[in-house]
């Protein structure tokens, strides 16, 4: 096998064992790697009855075929399983440094099953795998744990670590790499915690990567790296990080304000935008392995109420989730809240959104001091968020912490009083910081049809509506108007295929914007030796999209679940999108026709599945 190694680690934590297994080559060709291959593994070996936090549930980490290649954007991996936050299929992507190290050790992924008797870690040193107890690490934050790992296993050791939120099974606990990069979404930190697994550590002795055609791959790699580095997007990301265009986003109504109740706040725009972060607090730029874009920030806030030492800084999502969403324009507070979430191991998007929902509920008296143990939840009160609310969530140490640790959808169910009106979710996952009403109506559609719930990285719809995609080879030449539903279903059908290719090959969505479709195909062929045509590659993307829907179908998800919260569809009352209606039903109906999805069941018919090489899967769902 080329690019991939064909080998994974299968750890049965209840038995305390970890063994090497090989996967059929056809799995790779059909499902690419990353999120796609994880879906196939779950389909074959996962339990659809097991609750997400039960020992029998599988947690699957997979690389794509390019992990280990020295190319910008290649060093991501995917983690997948049944999400404790949503209850159905999901996955999450993380950059950083773990993916190449795992590949160099000789593995494409890790499947975790069972539960350790006492807190422990998995240590991978080339092909030696040990499961070791670390009772004394339980209770530590991510920062302290990562520092200990560095001390004990050396600076070259790469790790995935959970914080106290994961240990305490908070539904949206994340998994951190080097305190900076997160498998943020859908709660897989809690799944790791439920298995008593504090960390996975990997150390390789050499950089081994064996492509199908090294010479051709090397010249393509150089060509692409130059193209990626020189692009306008990359330069902007390099200079001012992922929040570089926050100010522009506010003016088009893309940035959510106070739990999506407003679409415009000019004063906040300049305070929170990426160039302000650069001017005020940036000390260094950082990157995932081999990435020349280096969109990550390192910040220091030497003084003031939100002072923090030099260390990982916030990305756009964190800045908006703990800034505009909470009615705050205090950039230092977003940095501190982000740092705290990283240490506790909390997804910043769900944490910020759940707190925003709670603040609105408190404002409207649906949530009172009786349920918050006396804590007042007022807009922009960042002291309370940082000192009280986030720790209480991570430790589930109070009524308020317990309520908000569930995520907004379950919390709304628990308190009732009409508070579900203020949710900003799709399939139980809180929407990212891109408001479909201003950012693009197509986002409402792609949030709704995404297998994991409201998500902007499941596919590139956001970039398509912005004008940052052009794929004439597959028919994407539309000049989309973000504030219209025209061509959104057609675009979404291409977006879900490209998104599946991105998330299965584990390529960064910022870096791969510069890669043309024929270049993608060459990359797969030179790295993994697939001999693909454009059509083969797009079919693989569609196959993954369908398989993810089939998994959800088996978890009970139907067409009627492909929805977004009313809040995300109600016309804005201010800003650029003021009064504009989103024609959601029309987009969804057209998408269902184009994607050949059954209008009730939400999955394709038997013939469509058979035609795309999902015959055995068709036999299961169409008995």
């Amino acid at each position: 096998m080329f690019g991939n190694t064909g080998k994974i680690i299968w750890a049965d934590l209840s038995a305390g064992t970890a063994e090497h297994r090989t996967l059929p080559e056809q799995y790779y060709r059909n499902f690419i790697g990353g999120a796609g291959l994880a879906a196939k593994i779950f389909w074959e070996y996962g339990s659809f009855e097991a609750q997400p936090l039960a020992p029998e549930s599988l947690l699957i980490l997979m690389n794509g075929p390019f992990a280990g290649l020295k190319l910008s954007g290649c060093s991501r991996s995917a983690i997948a399983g049944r999400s404790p936050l949503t209850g159905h299929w999901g996955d999450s992507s993380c950059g950083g440094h773990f993916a190449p190290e795992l590949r160099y050790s000789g593995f494409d992924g890790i499947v975790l099953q069972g539960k350790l008797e006492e807190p422990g870690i998995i240590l991978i040193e080339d092909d030696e795998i040990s499961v070791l107890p670390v009772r004394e690490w339980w209770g530590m934050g991510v920062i302290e744990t990562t520092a200990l790992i560095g001390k004990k296993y050396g600076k070259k050791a790469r790790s995935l670590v959970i914080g106290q939120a994961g240990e305490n099974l908070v539904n949206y606990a994340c998994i951190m790499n080097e305190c900076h990069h997160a498998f943020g979404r859908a709660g897989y930190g809690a799944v790791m915690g439920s298995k008593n697994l504090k960390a996975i550590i990997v150390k390789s002795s050499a950089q081994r990567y064996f492509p199908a055609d090294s010479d051709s791959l090397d010249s393509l790699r150089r060509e692409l790296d130059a193209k990626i580095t020189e692009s306008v997007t990359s330069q902007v990301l390099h200079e001012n990080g992922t929040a570089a265009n926050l100010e522009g986003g506010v003016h088009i109504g893309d940035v959510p304000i106070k739990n999506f109740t407003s679409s415009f706040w000019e004063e906040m725009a300049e305070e929170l935008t990426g160039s302000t972060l650069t001017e005020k607090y940036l000390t260094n730029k950082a990157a995932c392995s081999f990435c020349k874009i280096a969109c990550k920030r390192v910040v220091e806030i030497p003084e003031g109420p939100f002072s923090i030492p030099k260390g990982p800084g916030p990305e756009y999502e964190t800045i908006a989730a703990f800034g505009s969403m909470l009615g705050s324009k205090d950039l230092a507070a977003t940095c501190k809240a982000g740092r705290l979430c990283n240490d506790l191991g909390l997804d910043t998007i769900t944490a910020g959104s759940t707190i925003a929902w709670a603040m609105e509920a408190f404002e409207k008296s649906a949530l009172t001091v009786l349920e918050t143990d006396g804590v007042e939840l007022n807009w922009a009160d960042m002291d309370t968020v940082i000192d009280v609310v986030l720790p209480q969530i991570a430790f589930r140490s109070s009524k308020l912490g317990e309520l908000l640790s569930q995520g907004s959808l379950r919390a709304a169910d628990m308190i009732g009083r009409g508070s579900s009106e203020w949710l900003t979710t799709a399939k139980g996952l809180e929407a990212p910081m891109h408001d479909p009403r201003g950012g693009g109506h197509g986002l409402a559609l792609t949030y709704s049809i995404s297998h994991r719930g409201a998500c902007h990285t499941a596919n590139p719809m956001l970039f398509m509506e912005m004008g940052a995609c052009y794929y004439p080879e597959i028919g994407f030449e539309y000049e989309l108007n973000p504030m219209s539903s025209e061509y959104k279903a057609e675009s979404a059908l291409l977006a879900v295929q490209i998104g599946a290719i991105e998330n299965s090959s584990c390529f960064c969505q910022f870096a791969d914007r510069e890669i043309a479709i024929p270049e993608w195909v060459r990359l797969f062929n030179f790295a993994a030796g697939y001999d693909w045509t454009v059509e083969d590659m797009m079919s693989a993307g569609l196959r993954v999209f369908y398989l993810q829907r089939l998994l959800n179908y088996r978890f009970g998800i139907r067409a009627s679940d492909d929805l977004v919260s009313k809040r995300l569809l109600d016309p804005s009352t201010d800003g650029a999108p003021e009064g504009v209606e989103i024609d959601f039903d029309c987009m969804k109906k057209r998408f269902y026709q184009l994607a050949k999805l059954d209008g009730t069941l939400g999955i394709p018919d038997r013939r469509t599945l058979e035609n795309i090489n999902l015959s055995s899967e068709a036999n299961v769902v169409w008995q």
Partner: protein
Amino acid sequence: MEYWKDQHEPITAFLKLFEKAKQDPELSEGLKKVNQLIWFDYTEDGPDCSFHVDCRNGNVLSSQGKPSEEPDLTMSLSADDAHRSWSNKLNPVMAITRRKIRVKGSATGLLKLAPKLKKVAIIYEQALNDLNFSDKILK
């Protein structure tokens, strides 16, 4: 060229736009924040078809041709697309993606201007009227 009779017309119009933009407090502040020397290069439509704006050090100075110093940012496009762009009828991100606009150097400063494009279009319309170019206004 679809909108211009020669290479000088667009430069006259664009310089007029910047002259008027400087008078507008909001746009003038926005331009100062860009803090770059920018060369707008339309030389694909004629050797003299370009102008530059120096927004460094709290100034906004615009002048015909390529700057004598190395620009921080060069934007190369056709004079027609520039007309569409100043009229806010061309999505700059889309134009860059489709290589209608080629960018060299740092575009970070320009992001500061992006939110003001609507206002720029209003002033551009006034500039075209001042120059008796009303027939060129894009509706």
